[in-house]
């Protein structure tokens, strides 16, 4: 069974359209590749009570929460406070993080505000940041990363051992059929194979009009479900033109 993971992006800058969010698109395919199942994604404002309320709720739904953003030195960086409150521990200065920040002074930086980045919830494990002395941290099923994509990407491998699970099998069919033409066939395949998830996605430009994705824990069941769909599709006057099989860890 895959680890159920939730992704939470923190920051008014994303919600107000100041920057374009790029971390979700980076994380989800990697998590899927590692065998985790991303079951929720959320973007929350820089508001501690709102963030605390949502984090508590999300932790009931998932095994692990990945948070990005809001761990800088300015007053709008509220993630560490919110996470500490959810974990039920105070914020403390981590000596290792403090030493790292002090050993690499930054020209023009205000040392007292800069050292705020050494504060983490008590008992948290540091997540090393190879690009900066300001680390991420992990506590109470929450892993917190910087929001800067370059840093997140450099640090993200850290989470891999925590999420690695059985990769699911996937079969993707490509066709020129309009979605409505095969909705009934899809419904039939869904009821015949309740253990296989099916998704239909239109393609706006390209060689094909749609792709239908079948995902399951067992390759034989996933392939059989796709086969059933492909068998009945010609009744609509269309056929499967391309098929991509990705065997999961069961195969």
């Amino acid at each position, binding site marked *: 069974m895959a680890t159920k993971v939730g992704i939470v992006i923190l920051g008014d800058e994303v919600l107000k359209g100041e920057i374009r969010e790029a971390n979700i698109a980076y994380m989800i395919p990697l998590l899927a590749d590692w065998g985790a199942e991303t079951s929720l994604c959320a973007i929350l404002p820089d508001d501690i009570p709102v963030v605390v309320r949502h984090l508590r709720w999300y932790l009931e739904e998932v095994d692990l929460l990945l948070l990005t953003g809001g761990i800088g030195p300015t007053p709008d960086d509220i993630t560490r406070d919110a996470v500490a409150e959810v974990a039920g521990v105070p914020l403390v200065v981590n000596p290792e993080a403090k030493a790292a920040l002090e050993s690499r002074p930054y020209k023009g930086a205000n040392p007292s505000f800069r050292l705020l980045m050494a504060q983490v919830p008590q008992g948290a494990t540091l997540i090393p940041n190879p690009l900066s002395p300001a680390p991420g941290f992990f506590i109470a099923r929450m892993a917190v990363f910087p929001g800067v994509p370059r840093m997140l990407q450099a640090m993200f491998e850290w989470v891999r051992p925590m999420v690695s699970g059985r990769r699911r099998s996937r079969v993707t069919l490509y066709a020129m059929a309009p979605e409505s033409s095969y909705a009934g066939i899809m419904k039939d395949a869904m009821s015949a194979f309740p253990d296989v998830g099916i998704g239909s996605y239109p393609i706006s430009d390209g060689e094909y009009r749609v792709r239908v994705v079948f995902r399951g824990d067992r390759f034989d069941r996933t392939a059989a479900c796709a086969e059933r769909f492909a068998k009945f599709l010609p009744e609509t006057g269309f056929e499967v033109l391309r*098929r*991509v099989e990705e065997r999961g860890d069961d195969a």
Partner: protein
Amino acid sequence: MRNVLRTALFLLGCTVLFAASDRIGVAGEGRGTWEESTPGRWESLPERRVGGTDNGISVEMTMAPGTGVSYARTGRWEPGPAVLRFAADNVNSGRNDYFPGEAAFPASVTFVFGKDSLKLGAKRRVSLLLRQVWNGFTPSGIRLTYAWGNGLPVGSMYRLWEEETVFVVAGPEEVGKTVSTARRLVDDFGAAYGRPPVGGVTEVRVSARRPSREKGPVRASITVRFPAPPE
């Protein structure tokens, strides 16, 4: 006179031996109809498993750098539908798919329309011949190649040589997966050359290459069903 006769016999013997080594029968139904390239074409032949049938071939190989395979079957077929199935766990990332001398696909299938050709003119024909002397000869006639590309987006269609059009049916993002596709050769020919083909398919060629400068092996498989059996 005796020496001339001896030399002629020796040369004849060499020719027979060379021809025999070039015609390695493929196990399975339709034995002998598919011909395998000689090891001399590559640095060496890779570890491979082959099964041929009346309407197709299945090849699985593990190619170390500097190896490759090529199977060809000649005949005459209507340009009907073809079903192709590819798998590869790596690509030749150091190769440029656009250049005839550079393109080396980890898995590809080529349909040759030997009775059809483009009107290129004498000058371009000579230029083509000279480039083929340098880069290696291709079968004469118009060719449609379906390839596991090394870097171009899936769905790309481009002219490799004047008379060869490549359709990229899979690429680096599908490494480790199995890709099957059903192609209507007449439609693809029309898309590439703007007209229906003259004559049918005269040769089907299955090939896979791992150039010597690439690092590590590639495990690939190719299955062709042509003409594709009716559903």
